[in-house]
């Protein structure tokens, strides 16, 4: 039977099979596996059935631990069940995995193997996670490419039923999960043939049922537990045979033969590498290359890792083997070698012992580590390993792919070695996330993969920022299947879709001689040459590169495509590359456009067609001179003023050369300097705000809402203006709080702005002559960049306003405080960061942050540069991220430690009282520290104390010196999103709320898991479409505030900056002041809501006006004043809910997909709004004037 060829990635390949052969699917998002859950949810939402004709039930859980529990339960009650996960998620499943295996239960977990968080988190691929689960008793099957993922998924689902053991089916995160590849899709008949009914029935018959009751999960004692553990041995003994049999059966069906250990290479190899995962693909390519040149080498691909079959391994090993290298894609610090190394070593040793070792003698045997966190693993590295095996004493426990100048573990390799062949097209495309480059390339792969006989591979690299991010697409096409599981090193086609990149990146560094360079350029074919850097000109000349230009943006503008140049650049690619004939290619692109956009309306299709047609007329080959005219000097990546570490280490990462950083250059314990984003000048905004002092009313709102802290305000003595740059603007400071002669400036950081326009939208002041202008207006960045840079530098050197004089409870006052959170990598227009920035302004010099994993930990802590900053005194927020699930507990730990240290400092201080100034000691001990000036005074007292302590001897004085700073109030902030607070971290959050300890919990509530791409959380409102709620969420949002209030001793506030900035500031200040746990739930607009985020603050207001988001504060301190602790800060709903929600795609799309459901949910949601309001009103009207009558007793002491 002819099977369909499809171009899909590894995740889709796994999800395709998993959804077809399961009845119950429990899911939870985690990168890079989320797509499998999303696809399963979408398949079911669309009514797609499994091979038994039923639509699988897909349920999102609150954590991976929850998903594993649900899977365990579903299995116990007889359903065919699966889940998908990775990394920490897999770790959370381990407790259940022991049980599932112990109970001999059949299931498959599809795992995109990913690094574990250690010295730092990484979302990328290696085997750290699966290796941490190898002891659970699960079968472990590895897939090395998307085709194998689809095949092995089916083999796994079948084998588990037959072996009565659960399976971890794993493949490399990103490299395989996200590699788009042309593969043969299995048919329903294939799936049916591999999943015989009798095995399904046998599985079902194990179900717990009252109709035939049994029990499992007993507690066993010393008399029987041990024996119980050993009962399972026969199942493990049979499993390798079963799996090979299933693999053989699969081969009979499809022609693709897999073995438990697949040998590849010369039959008489003397050097052999043993490994598993995607790296084996690059290794087999290298084996082909070297073996064809006479090298006796081979490769054993491990497919079945657990149970580890010594017998099958030995069978696969060539008898001629003299040297062996076992490669592990994981790190087990302190071990005597990584897991696979040990398994193979043990196998060979045991075989040696019992005389079954086929080789003449025990081979030279080494192990090494490679590819951690998707580190490149290339043929050059593989060759180096084979070369190492030639040596008499090859290096054991080596690393490959890095320079380890600390312990010298690394092998040196020749980076110029390549196995790339001329018959494979290799294209690299540099673009911006926003310009559609990746989408267009995925489209091209589909066209070439599905419309021609070529094989195709696409892999996409994204940078670490969420705004203005660069993407690099790596595309290969060829007549043979492509096994190059590494980035393109010798491109034959380089396309640069953004002209600004020519200066920033060395895109032609490795271009093949005669390669094509396609540049999207605002300059014509005649002008462009002189706008290229000398380095690039030289590369073009010396390699005889065919150079093409198009003004893609102009074509896009002319054809109504706006800024989307994707179709245009795609057309250029086809026109030049010759992969297809021009006419054919254009036909196919148009077909693809119709397919992609057809349902989106004829107008969109028409515009795309027009863009395609106009492209060729605007595409030109450049006749370049034979001489270099540009300058060859590379601009410095960072300013000369940057600290040494930034210059030496951070700047390499910023320049995309992080691979060159050696181990000795890296911090050993994951500790990094803060305040580094200021050195990364990204210049991503084409337009930036410009201040008009004449129109400005000095309200400070523009600075308050700026997500990237690029709008700053200072009030200062006019004398500082001397020597100001010519275009520097200032005006008289308005307001009685300022001394006469105080000047006022709003300055924009021109190179750090993302151009989101939130500031312009919020600005309430209009120009009286021309109401289209405000006090802040957008202007093109380029013409004013240099002058504004000078202004910005001058501004930074103006003195900060005296904190103790600021009335920080007003917007105007708070915005005079220096932000200590700046230039983050958050999305342009982010709704979360304005809150963090505000908190950093208010308490930054004494705050310590525990940050849950999520958006805020990524824009807050993703290298190379991080936004948490320092003031001139060197104080600023200290920050760390533990995990996703434990953040409240993590932050509580901060508090416990700080409180204990404060207590110890107090004890020491009292013990040293007689040796110190009594007034100073008394002053320190009795300090209030509620207001800014009180804290300032305490800091001064502690400084005096430290000076005095230095003159004393004795251990108490020494100890107090190290603890004295704890006598100054520290502010603990526990920060995270709703995925953390409402779902995975809720248990811990709930516990911390009852702790009575002074912690401030800030929930940045976007109502979805934003960082992983918008999956539903328990905060997601009714009627919103989210991933995992593809058909719209059916139940309402959890009222976290109400739950927290029920404890009575928790300060709770719900805030929305866009609705009431004053209430926001007040709540944050009250929460911090409250000497107990505080919970602030902050409405945060988000890109996952689907509208132009410049209207984010307006949407926040509508959310409040509609009653969706009621503002309130619950302050337990008020009870003692005979006041109601609950204060409603917003008015009764005054607009219809639909007037708020239908501005957002997340709601609107449901009206377009399922209008009836949308209407029903809207009605229900509107009713809920009224009911909630009524309830809050009742709470707010409680009479507390007689103490003790309140509904919520105060329990401040725990």
């Amino acid at each position, binding site marked *: 039977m002819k099977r369909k060829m499809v171009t899909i990635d590894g995740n889709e390949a796994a999800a395709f099979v998993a959804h077809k052969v399961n009845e119950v699917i429990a899911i939870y998002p985690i990168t890079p596996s989320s797509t499998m859950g999303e696809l399963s949810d979408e398949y079911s939402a669309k009514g797609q059935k499994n091979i038994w004709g039923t639509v699988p039930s897909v349920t999102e859980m609150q954590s991976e631990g929850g998903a594993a529990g649900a899977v365990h339960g579903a299995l116990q009650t007889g359903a065919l069940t699966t889940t998908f996960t990775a990394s920490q998620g897999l770790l959370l499943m381990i407790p259940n995995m022991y049980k599932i295996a112990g109970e001999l239960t059949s299931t498959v977990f599809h795992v995109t193997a990913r690094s574990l968080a250690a010295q730092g988190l990484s979302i990328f691929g290696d085997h750290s996670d699966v290796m941490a689960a190898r002891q659970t008793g699960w079968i472990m099957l590895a897939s090395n490419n998307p085709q194998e993922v689809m095949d092995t998924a089916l083999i796994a689902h079948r084998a588990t039923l037959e072996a009565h053991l659960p399976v971890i089916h794993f493949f490399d995160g990103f490299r395989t999960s996200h590699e788009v590849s042309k593969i043969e899709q299995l048919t329903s008949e294939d799936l049916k043939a591999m999943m015989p009914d009798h095995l399904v029935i046998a599985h079902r018959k194990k179900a717990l049922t009252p109709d035939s009751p049994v029990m499992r999960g007993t507690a066993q004692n010393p008399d029987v537990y041990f024996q119980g553990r050993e009962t399972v041995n026969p199942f493990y003994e049979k499993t390798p045979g079963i799996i090979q049999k299933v693999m053989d059966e699969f081969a009979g069906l499809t022609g693709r033969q897999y073995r438990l250990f697949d040998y590849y290479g010369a039959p008489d190899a003397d050097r052999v590498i043993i490994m598993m995962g995607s790296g084996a693909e690059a290794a087999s390519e290298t084996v082909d290359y070297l073996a064809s040149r006479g090298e006796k080498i081979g490769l054993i691909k491990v497919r079945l890792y657990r149970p580890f079959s010594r017998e099958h391994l030995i069978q696969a090993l060539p008898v001629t083997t003299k040297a062996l290298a076992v490669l592990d894609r994981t790190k087990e610090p302190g071990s005597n070698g990584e897991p696979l190394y040990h398994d193979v070593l043990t196998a060979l040793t045991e075989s040696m012992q019992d005389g079954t070792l086929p080789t003449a003698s025990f081979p030279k045997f080494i192990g090494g580590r490679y590819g951690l966190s998707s580190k490149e693993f290339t043929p050059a590295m593989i060759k180096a390993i084979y070369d190492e095996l030639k040596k008499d004493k090859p290096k054991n426990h080596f690393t490959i792919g890095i320079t380890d100048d600390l312990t010298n573990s690394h092998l040196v390799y020749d980076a110029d070695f390549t196995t790339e062949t001329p018959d494979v097209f290799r294209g690299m495309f540099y673009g911006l*996330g*926003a310009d559609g480059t990746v989408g267009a390339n995925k489209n091209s792969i589909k066209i070439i993969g599905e419309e021609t006989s070529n094989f195709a591979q696409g892999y996409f690299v994204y940078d670490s920022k*969420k705004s203005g991010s660069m993407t690099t697409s790596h595309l290969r096409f060829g007549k043979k299947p492509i096994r190059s599981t590494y980035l393109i090193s010798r491109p034959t086609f380089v396309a640069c879709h953004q002209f600004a990149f020519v200066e920033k990146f060395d895109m032609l560094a490795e271009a093949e001689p005669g390669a094509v360079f396609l540049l999207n350029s605002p300059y014509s074919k005649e002008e462009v040459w002189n706008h290229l850097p000398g380095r690039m000109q030289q590369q073009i000349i010396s390699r005889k590169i065919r150079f093409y230009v198009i003004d893609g943006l102009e074509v896009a503008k002319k054809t109504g495509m706006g800024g989307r140049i994707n179709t245009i650049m795609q057309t250029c690619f086809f026109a030049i590359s010759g992969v297809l004939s021009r006419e054919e290619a254009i036909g196919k692109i148009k077909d693809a456009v119709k397919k992609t956009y057809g349902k989106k*309306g004829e107008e*969109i299709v028409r515009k795309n067609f027009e863009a395609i047609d106009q492209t060729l007329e605007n595409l030109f080959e450049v006749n370049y001179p034979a001489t270099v005219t540009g300058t060859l000097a590379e601009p410095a990546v960072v300013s000369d003023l940057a600290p040494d570490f930034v210059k030496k280490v951070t700047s390499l990462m910023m320049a995309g050369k992080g691979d060159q950083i050696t181990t000795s250059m890296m911090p050993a314990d994951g500790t990094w300097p803060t305040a580094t984003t200021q050195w990364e000048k990204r210049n991503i905004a084409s337009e930036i705000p410009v201040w008009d002092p004449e129109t400005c009313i000095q309200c400070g709102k523009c600075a308050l809402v700026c997500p990237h802290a690029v709008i700053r305000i200072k009030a200062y003595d006019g004398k500082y203006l001397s020597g100001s740059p010519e275009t520097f603007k200032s005006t008289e400071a308005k307001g009685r709080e300022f001394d006469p002669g105080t000047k006022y400036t709003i300055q924009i950081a021109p190179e750090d702005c993302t151009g989101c326009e939130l500031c312009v939208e919020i600005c309430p002041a209009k120009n009286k002559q021309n109401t289209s202008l405000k006090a802040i207006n957008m202007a093109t960045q380029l013409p004013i960049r240099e002058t504004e840079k000078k202004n910005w530098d001058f501004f930074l050197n103006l003195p900060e306003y005296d904190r103790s004089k600021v009335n920080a409870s007003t917007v105007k006052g708070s915005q005079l405080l220096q932000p200590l959170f700046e230039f983050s990598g958050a999305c342009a227009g982010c709704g979360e960061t304005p809150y963090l920035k505000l908190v950093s302004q208010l308490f930054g010099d004494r705050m310590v942050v525990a940050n849950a994993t999520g958006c805020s930990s990524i824009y807050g802590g993703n290298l190379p540069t991080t936004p948490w900053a320092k003031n001139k005194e060197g104080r600023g927020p200290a920050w760390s991220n533990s995990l996703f699930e434990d953040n409240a507990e993590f932050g509580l730990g901060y508090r416990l430690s700080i409180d204990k240290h404060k207590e110890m400092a107090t004890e020491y201080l009292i013990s040293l009282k007689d040796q110190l100034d009594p007034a100073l000691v008394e002053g320190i001990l009795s300090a209030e520290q509620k207001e800014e000036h009180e804290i300032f005074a305490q800091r001064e007292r502690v400084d005096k104390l430290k000076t005095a302590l230095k003159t004393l001897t004795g251990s108490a004085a020494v100890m107090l010196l190290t603890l004295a700073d704890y006598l100054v109030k520290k502010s603990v902030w526990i920060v995270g999103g709703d995925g953390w607070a409402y779902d995975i971290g809720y248990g811990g959050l709930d516990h911390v709320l009852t702790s009575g300890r002074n912690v401030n919990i800030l929930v940045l509530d976007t109502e979805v898991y934003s960082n992983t*791409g918008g999956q539903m959380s328990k905060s997601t409102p009714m009627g919103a479409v989210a991933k995992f709620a593809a058909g719209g969420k059916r139940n309402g949002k959890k009222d976290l505030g109400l739950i927290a209030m029920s404890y009575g001793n928790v300060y709770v506030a719900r805030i929305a900056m866009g609705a009431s900035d004053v209430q926001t500031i007040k709540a944050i200040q009250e929460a911090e002041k409250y000497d107990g746990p505080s919970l602030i739930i902050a409405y945060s607009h988000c890109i996952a809501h689907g509208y132009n985020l410049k209207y984010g603050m307006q949407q926040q207001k509508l959310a409040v006006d509609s009653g969706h988001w009621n503002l309130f504060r619950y302050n337990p301190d008020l009870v003692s004043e005979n006041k109601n602790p609950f204060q409603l800060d917003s008015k009764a709903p005054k607009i219809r809910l639909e007037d708020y929600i239908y501005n957002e795609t997340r709601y609107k799309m449901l009206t377009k997909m399922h209008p009836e459901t949308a209407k029903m949910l809207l009605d229900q949601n509107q009713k809920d709004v009224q009911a909630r309001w009524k309830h809050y009103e009742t709470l707010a009207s409680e009479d507390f004037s007689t103490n003790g009558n309140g509904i919520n007793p105060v329990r401040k002491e725990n």
Partner: protein
Amino acid sequence: MDISTNYLGLKLKSPLVASASPLSTDVAKVRQLEDAGASAVVMYSLFEEQIEHDNQALDTFLEQGTESFAEALDYFPTPEEYYNREAEDYLEQIHKLKKAVDIPVIASLNGVTPGGWTKYARKMQDAGADAIELNVYHIATDFSKSALDVENIYIEDLKSVKYAVTIPVSIKVGPYFSSFANMAKRLNEAGADGLVLFNRFYQPDIDLDALEVMPNLQFSSPAEMRLPLRWLAILYGHLNSCSLAATTGVHSSYDVLKLIMAGADVTMLASALLKNGIGRLTEIEMEMKHWMEEHEYESLSQMRGSMSYRHVKDPAAFTRANYMKTLQSIK
């Protein structure tokens, strides 16, 4: 007493037609309209521009931020078939209304592109609409376009729809033409089966606090029927097989009677029903019959056009003289 009338070749039991309004989005309301005496219903308008705009907006926002960040390659589930939901819903609503009521259902279309006009018109016909009312809502802001250029847009739109469908097509226009009599004639010649007089435009207002322009649409007032009244009177008898409908400002039985006397075949009501409820229709019909009885009229056709420019004693009253007279009366 015979109050039936002919409109666009459709035999209607009375001249009281429910004009385009949100009422027609609800099948139950349309049923009530029928019970209350509406002789036909013009549906709410299908705005091609809005559909296209919505599609583009959805496309933009579904794509926003995609393929930029490794952990979040997109932010929404992949939608299936839903983009043209408004259009599909509209066609579905025609279908539903046709099943629910016996009175004719007239679809209302507001297009922006030639392709849009014809595509949706044909779909409306296929969905069962008895006629189509083209609602041309065009503010001529282009300084380079002459009056003739603007007029030609109307003519071309009408022609393209007439070419695409076989059911009757009326056209609803605004009064802002230099030579409306000529324009009406041209529309008639281009194939209009009826003219609907007149469109009401959203008139902007200024919010003094926010210094913003605010769109503003208020219910019509009875005084507004004077404008269609004049033009009906002028046009009556000058067009060839072209029905005349009065809309805007029809609030009472007197308004209906006046407009018919001026020359209307039907009168269309929306504001009156939105403001006073659907039951108002029954009252108007009763009052109208009562008046006719009292004044011994046997049928509508008897009075139709009786007060038109052609038949009135002092036709100048419909022209500038009227203005002069009004001015004098103020003195």
